[in-house]
């Protein structure tokens, strides 16, 4: 490509945020830029943010959708703190996101959207371009709509269809500014609109027009390049948490030599797991879109009874509805994975925002004494392994397992160094095909190591047995109201779960092991916490971190790890749930850093807060 007297500056990382109306195609622009950067070899992390409404009123702050991506030439863990570049497709997008833009950041505005009506709708009294509030940023006004109309004149398309391509102008311009080739996106457009060649051509024309605008317009005198990242060698794909989690379940079923059953009722932000698994029926995956959350869980219990790797997926409100059914699986001691992609609560809450506020609910949200294992995904690429681990525990120990993800893990993406499928461990099951005593079949005669009961599947002659939610007699599984037996079974169900502590990865310390302060986290705050600890260590601040994947039981070395430090800090996107658990279980005077704003922590925010506590 010609460079026309423009300077190219090499930078280690850049964070770009695209913002516009939810119909403006910002998610698509962000995804395309991300994929191109991934193929180029950058490390990256993304953060989509969209309103709960599919099409909120145009031009309003409520309707603004955004997509943030950080690309870097080094290993990064978060989608960046404050964007260095903000693309705002209208005044509302500007208003909603300007406060995040880094000082002297690049601000690309779709000039054509700054008419009085839109300016007022966004809540501005005067045009922000003239009020002085954009001072301190590098502002580039681009007539995106005018450019689109002119470029697409040759195509016989209705006006609305023409304007829909204006996101391609923005993508073209950003591709120019960051020296990204267009080829990959051109291929993608041709593929997507293979049946509508005119639309494909029009979009490619708009893309090139945006790119050429950068070349020819004097204002864009400076472009940037983020070189390839020095990631560990391997084959990579760009993965989001929902897809990673889905693939983890498919892999687990395959490696357990079982078929996968996924029962679910559509709910944001978990629905994409249902969508993804529905595509892969050739893996013998049965997806069941149930009439409600309860049926989704109940059918999964039925599937588990017959010998499937049974999974039911939902988000917070749905977990509430599944609670009674999970207790049934727990009492019947049937394997079941329950996926909860957490969102802001309570009630309908913030359907499209991340929160870690279901931890206590996962641990304790059932009637009766009903402990079960809880596993949490810590990043989009980790979701695959977290799902695999949840399935492993469920099958090996004949228990329901709650797998926690959240909106940040589910919709964010990052490069994933692909595992060697052959090296994934096979998963054990407790399937039984013959009598387990000379006198007959005892459905609750336990494995002496795992305390798991045998899994007899309908269709197996001679092992016919009945199981339900009434208390069972140890061994026979017959209904029993015997006092000593209930005491024993309650204790046994608890032992079975706490015993898993010996069969999970140990808690690892990251950062400065000689430090006095340990930052203890779980779930999606992994990237932010780790980056904050790295930054502090680089500054010479002594601090370490450890991150729970298993929330119940905790790894058996947890006390040992915690005892090495004088101070424990627990950052969470809730009001202090792990904090309470840690204080109670390890009698440590831990401190929380808590946030429930519907946004995750930025690495800088954690860096500052951790340092503040250390310096107190």
């Amino acid at each position: 490509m010609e460079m026309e007297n423009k300077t190219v500056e090499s930078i280690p990382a850049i964070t770009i945020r695209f913002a516009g109306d939810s119909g403006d195609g910002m998610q698509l622009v962000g995804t395309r830029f991300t994929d191109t950067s991934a193929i180029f070899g950058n490390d990256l992390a993304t953060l989509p943010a969209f309103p709960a409404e599919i099409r909120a009123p145009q031009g309003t702050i409520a309707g603004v959708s955004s997509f943030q991506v950080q690309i870097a030439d080094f290993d990064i863990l978060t989608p960046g703190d404050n964007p260095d570049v903000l693309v705002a497709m209208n005044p509302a997008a500007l208003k909603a996101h300007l406060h995040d833009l880094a000082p002297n950041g690049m601000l690309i505005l779709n000039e054509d959207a700054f008419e009085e009506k839109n300016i007022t709708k966004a809540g501005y009294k005067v045009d922000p371009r003239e009020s002085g509030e954009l001072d301190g940023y590098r502002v580039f006004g681009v007539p995106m709509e005018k450019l689109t109309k002119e470029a697409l004149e040759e195509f016989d398309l209705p006006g609305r269809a023409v304007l829909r391509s204006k996101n391609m102008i923005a993508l073209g311009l950003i591709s120019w500014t960051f020296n990204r080739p267009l080829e990959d996106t051109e291929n993608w457009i041709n593929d997507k609109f293979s049946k509508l060649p005119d639309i494909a051509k029009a979009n490619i024309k708009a893309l090139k027009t945006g790119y050429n605008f950068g070349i020819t317009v004097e204002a864009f005198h400076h472009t940037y390049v983020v070189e390839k990242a020095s990631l560990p060698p391997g084959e990579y794909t760009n993965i989001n948490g929902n897809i990673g989690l889905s693939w983890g379940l498919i892999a687990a079923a395959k490696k357990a030599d079982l078929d996968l059953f996924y029962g679910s009722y559509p709910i944001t932000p978990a629905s994409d797991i249902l969508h993804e698994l529905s595509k892969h029926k050739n893996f013998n995956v049965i997806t069941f879109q149930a009439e409600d959350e309860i049926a989704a869980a109940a059918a999964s219990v039925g599937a588990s009874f017959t010998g499937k790797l049974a999974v039911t997926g939902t988000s917070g409100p749905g977990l509430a509805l599944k609670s009674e059914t999970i207790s049934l699986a727990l009492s019947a001691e049937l394997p079941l994975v329950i996926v909860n992609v957490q969102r802001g609560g309570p009630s309908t809450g913030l359907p499209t925002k991340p929160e870690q506020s279901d931890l206590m609910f996962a641990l304790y949200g059932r009637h009766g004494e009903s402990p079960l294992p809880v596993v949490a995904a810590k990043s989009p690429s980790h979701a695959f392994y977290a799902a695999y681990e949840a399935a492993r525990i469920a099958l090996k120990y004949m228990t329901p397992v709650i797998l926690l993800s959240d909106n940040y893990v589910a919709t964010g993406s990052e490069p994933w160094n692909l595992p060697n499928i052959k090296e994934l461990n096979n998963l054990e099951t407790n399937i039984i095909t013959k009598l387990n005593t000379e006198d007959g079949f005892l459905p609750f005669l336990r494995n002496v190591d795992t305390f798991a009961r045998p899994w007899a599947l309908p269709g197996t002659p001679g092992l016919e047995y009945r199981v339900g939610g009434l208390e069972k007699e140890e061994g026979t599984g017959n209904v029993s109201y015997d006092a000593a037996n209930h005491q024993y079974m309650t204790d046994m169900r608890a032992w079975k779960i706490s015993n898993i502590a010996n069969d999970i990865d140990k808690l690892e310390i990251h950062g400065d092991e000689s430090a006095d302060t340990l930052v203890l986290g779980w779930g999606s705050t992994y990237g932010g916490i780790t980056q904050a600890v790295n930054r502090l260590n680089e500054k010479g601040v002594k601090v370490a971190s450890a991150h729970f994947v298993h929330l119940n039981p905790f790894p058996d070395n947890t006390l040992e790890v915690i005892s090495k430090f004088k101070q424990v800090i627990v950052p969470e996107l809730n009001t202090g749930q792990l904090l309470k658990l840690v204080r109670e279980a390890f009698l440590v005077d831990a401190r929380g850093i808590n946030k429930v704003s519907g946004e995750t922590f930025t690495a800088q925010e954690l860096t500052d807060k951790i340092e503040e506590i250390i310096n107190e």
Partner: protein
Amino acid sequence: MSKVPVTYKRTDMQSDQEVKWCPGCGDYTILASVQNFMAEMGISKEKIVFVSGIGCAARFPYYMNTYGVHSIHGRAPAVATGVSVSNPDLSVWVVSGDGDSLSIGGNHLIHALRKNVNIKILMFNNQIYGLTKGQYSPTSEEGKKTKSSPFGSVEMPLNPMSLAIGAEASFVARSIDMDRDLTAGILEEAKNHKGSAFVEIYQNCNVFNDKAFEQLTNKETKVANRINLVHGEKTVFGEDGHKAVVIRNGIAQIVDTKDVDESEIYVHNIHEENPSIAFSLSRLSHGPYGPTPLGVFRKVQRDTFTEEVHGQIDMAKEQKGEGELDKLIRSLGTWDVS
């Protein structure tokens, strides 16, 4: 493993558990009917699964020497759906009551019927809550005085046959506990039916709602009140067939046989695709009061959920080949870092 005989004695179908319903409960008769039927239905018992919810009837699986799940209140059709779709070779039977099926589990019932899941639902209707000791149920008659309705229930009861037909059920039938032959015949029809079957069985609760179905069981009144629906036969009933059912303007009516031309008498056709007549027959009584139809209301063929789901899996495998994990994790495009 030795070949399992496919005909059994009734005792082969009995589990070793003591049956604990109240003495005189209609459930005993139904259990005997089902065990007798199962012994001779020609399916190996390891392939039979009973699924229940909560209630007196829901203890049923414990008494069958087959596979069984005693699940939670109202959810049996959903659990059974999971069982059936996971293993189409199984013969899956749901045992439920009027509270379990029509109140707390109403949603699951209608969707299992609509989807035509290959499960057979036996709903024992005693028009009362027995296990919780006598509150009114969604099939209790208006004005019913119970512990929770001391001044009489103010609720319109559901008509289970109408509900099932409205929910697109492909097989709908009604029996009564005392009539073992009728029950056996219906069970046989249900077993042979491809898809979901909904069988209401009037069941006497001698403790909390005794004699609720007396009009249909008492020697003095039953002839006048039982309308036996038999496929291909004229629908006449009563002493010497002096009453008949006719369909006028699409609506079923009871007339004196002598008042109508014989050709006008409704000849029952369980295979009629249009559900309107079956629905209209279900409206002849709203509870077991006065002339009440018993037998198979409707039995029509359509694709089952179970088959369709597996059809799609087979098709996917044919089109894409057996799934390979190595390909799956590369399906979004990859790049190499060396």
